[in-house]
């Protein structure tokens, strides 16, 4: 296939890596955040929840533009911490950008899942000697599994597909910051429709496979005999 150029392959690899790393990062950051939101009784909670949804409201390219100003060579980070802190045009920069943009899609399902669990299972776990940390892993997370799956899927898929932010703070450097979505987009813009179709079809098929698998596994009986510890 003459259209799967080395640059395309690099883009595919980078995309998968970006989506995976972003999803993991989002789960790592989003989980405690969602947990805190689910349990907090602070009066300013609605404000924080609203703030978290804000990245959605800006067009990705515009958001990317502001992130570029923030993370770029003249940004406050660089002036504070020096050259090394310039995250734009690097993989970490891409991850941060994607993560900020997809954060709400991860936090919301998690928060709702955590809220739905209620107090009782945690109380039960505490009477069975499980520390809060322990309960979180052995009770909260397993019980919130549908929410965790939804969060991961939305975060992953959204990172696969979105490129406005990535383009802006990544600079579309082939092999370094060019992701698959931009590659497909370029094909469409360049009127190379056949190649765009192939790439898009490939991406869709792959995603369909992965997502179907995830959902199918998720569906399996949620019971486990053993208990993490």
């Amino acid at each position, binding site marked *: 296939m003459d259209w799967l150029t080395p640059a395309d392959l690099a883009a595919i690899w980078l995309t998968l890596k970006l989506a995976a790393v972003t999803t993991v990062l989002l789960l790592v950051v989003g989980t405690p955040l969602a947990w805190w939101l689910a349990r907090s009784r602070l009066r300013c909670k609605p404000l924080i929840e609203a703030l978290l949804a804000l990245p959605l409201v800006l067009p990705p390219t515009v958001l990317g533009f502001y992130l570029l100003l923030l993370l770029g060579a003249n940004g406050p980070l660089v002036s504070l911490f020096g050259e090394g802190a310039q995250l734009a*045009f690097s993989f970490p920069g891409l991850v941060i950008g994607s993560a900020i943009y997809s954060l709400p899609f991860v936090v919301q399902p998690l928060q709702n899942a955590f809220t739905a669990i209620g107090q009782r299972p945690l109380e039960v776990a505490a009477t069975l000697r499980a520390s809060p940390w322990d309960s979180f892993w052995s009770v909260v997370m397993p019980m919130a599994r549908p929410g965790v799956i939804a969060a991961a899927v939305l975060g992953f898929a959204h990172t696969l597909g979105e490129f406005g932010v990535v*383009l802006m703070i990544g600079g579309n*450097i082939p092999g370094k910051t*060019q992701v698959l979505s931009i590659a497909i987009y370029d094909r469409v813009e360049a009127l190379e429709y056949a190649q765009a179709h192939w790439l898009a079809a490939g991406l869709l098929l792959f995603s369909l496979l992965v997502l179907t698998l995830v959902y199918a596994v998720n569906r399996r009986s949620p019971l486990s005999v053993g208990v993490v510890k």
Partner: protein
Amino acid sequence: QAIDVAVASNFMAAAKALQADFEQRGVHRINLVAGSTGKHYAQIINGAPFDIFLAADRRRPQLLEQQGRAVQGSRFSYAIGQLVLWSAAENSVDDKGRVLDVGEFKRLAIANPKLAPYGRAAQQVLENKAALQGEYSSRLLRGENINQAFQFVHSGNAELGFVALSQLKTLAKNANGEIPGSHWVVPNDLYDPIEQQAVQLSDDPAASAFLRYLKSPAGQSVIAKFGYLLPVAGDT
């Protein structure tokens, strides 16, 4: 009733000036629709209600004409873009472009060569500096279009960038009344001309009127003010 003019993003600033001038002269009103030329092309093919298409290249108008989507014989070049190597920093770019040969920069912004004529032109310039070719590719920031390439340089994220002269013209002048930073207007023989063509899509009289205005000396002088070269008359 205003007519809709699809305008290549890089030409928007000039288009706005043209619009103001045109509307002031006559009864017709126009609506500018900014966008990338590839997108506009796809939309026109699929029924977008545009009356005029001011493209960033000659290929897309040509295609439309071939496919019968354009008014036959309405196609013409309205401007020729000039490529500039620009840095936001003073004394960074010399007036011979030797900075490219030395290669002492971390990032160079260009527009995507596949999509944007300015990008392709920049690519050609770089290919002429064949010695540095391999090294460059990982230092190239590629904006989706020439505007993004400009943003990379403007925000200081790229030391250098190939941008359009028309963009530098819109910048606020520095204290000396000159273009801020340093730049090198790339000689025309280093790249294929960036010929921007227009084509009429509907037979709305206002569309014909605007295209006539575009070809008129009045229109041409506005275009020239924005840093474009003017096409040789009759060249299509």
